[in-house]
């Protein structure tokens, strides 16, 4: 009896599947999960520390990881300092965002996100905007940090302490420096998964 030939195409697909599994596990996902989407909301995409680091890491995430779809929303449509490798929308399109996690990057963008029906907003507080800002409406600040739909993520441990002392809230334990999209994605996707699991009927 002739020896059965090895199907090389099958081996290749198995290897690809393994690779995809490894990549997705870095974001806390498995192949059986639905395609995840994450929205990032920026005030503008012009030159700033936040945007430069944020877009760089978002582009890295888009290039190297499967299973997650990234969308950027921006309040001011001006030329980006780095060409994003994902879709970019105006802030008006935020109303079409449904139940996927949304990461806002300032008080202004959090207020805009709160005006939509998005159930969970992750306010990535890159700067302590409430300091030396007398123009800012204190109601906006309270909303952006204390609204029950908002979870605050800090850039530095000292910022986390400051926010907790100022608003009496509990900031996310994970500190995310330099708007690292990979860490932010893993954090929000894991939380969303856990939340869905706990809400699922037994």
């Amino acid at each position, binding site marked *: 009896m002739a020896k059965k030939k090895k199907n090389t195409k099958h081996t290749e697909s198995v290897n690809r599947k393994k690779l995809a599994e490894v990549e997705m596990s870095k974001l806390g996902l498995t192949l059986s999960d639905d395609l995840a989407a994450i929205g990032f909301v920026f005030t*503008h995409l*012009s*030159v*700033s*520390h*936040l945007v*430069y680091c944020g877009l*760089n890491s978002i582009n890295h995430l888009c290039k190297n990881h499967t299973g997650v779809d990234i969308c950027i929303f921006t309040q001011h449509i*001006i030329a980006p300092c780095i060409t994003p490798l994902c879709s970019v929308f105006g802030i008006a399109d935020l109303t079409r965002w449904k139940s996927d996690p949304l990461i806002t990057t300032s008080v202004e963008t959090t207020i805009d996100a709160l005006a939509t029906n998005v159930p969970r907003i992750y306010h990535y507080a*890159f*700067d*302590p*905007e409430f*300091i030396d800002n007398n123009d800012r409406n204190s109601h906006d600040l309270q909303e952006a940090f204390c609204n029950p739909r908002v979870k605050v993520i800090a*850039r*530095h441990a*000292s*910022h986390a302490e*400051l926010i907790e002392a100022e608003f009496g809230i509990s900031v996310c334990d994970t500190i995310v420096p330099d708007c690292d999209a990979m860490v932010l994605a893993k954090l929000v996707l894991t939380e969303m998964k856990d939340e869905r699991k706990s809400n699922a009927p037994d």
Partner: protein
Amino acid sequence: MKDKEKVTICIATRNSKSTIARALKSVVGGIRPADQVVIGDNDSDDGTYEFLCELLGAEEVTIGENKGLPPNFDGEFLGTPVKIFRKRLSTTSHTLNMAMQMKWEGVTIFGFLEPTSWYAGDKIAQAVRIFQSKPYIACVVSDWDNHHENGVVERVFKHSFDCNRLLARFEYDRNFLVRSGTFGQLKCGFNEQMTLRDDYDLIMKISEKGLVYHVPAPLHNNTVAENDSEQSEIVLAEEFVRQCAKERRGGVNG
């Protein structure tokens, strides 16, 4: 701590006898000491230069019939090479530009330090790590602690760099570090005509060439003192910087 960077710290002194030793110790000590320090004395009359000569062991020299301290001297302080020089009174920016020109070959990072301030032990180490992590970073600024006369230490929180925010106001101070290649791109250093806010002018120019990276940790210490300059003069200087930036940018993005 080993790395391939060569860090030179430039300090311009003017009647800073009481604080310069603390400033110098902070940059030659710490986790990652500076590779060289250049101190330019801006015609102090409180004995700052004499104090620096004593600190480094410079002896009097005789030139013709004149005997006195050398106009410049290369010494060592706690194992780090220190270069000092004195010059006629001019602006701080002129002194710092001269200090930068007196550097050794192969300097990759310039750091600047006010003689009344001092670096935290990990400031240079953190800056080196940041410069090495991302090639597009041109300058590293940080938060700081303010030390008041009554002994109170106040943590100062600053915002990260944003081109629009920087155009509206200057948040940082002179205690920052710059990649030396940035000066080559700028083809200039500090604006020597400016007596105030020359640091704002430089950071504004640097921000047009690379990223100004803000570290949200107190990496240096400032002493709080009464500012001799009138607030109106500072406002005028800042307005001048903004006008220059707008002219350079030719209306693009402000």
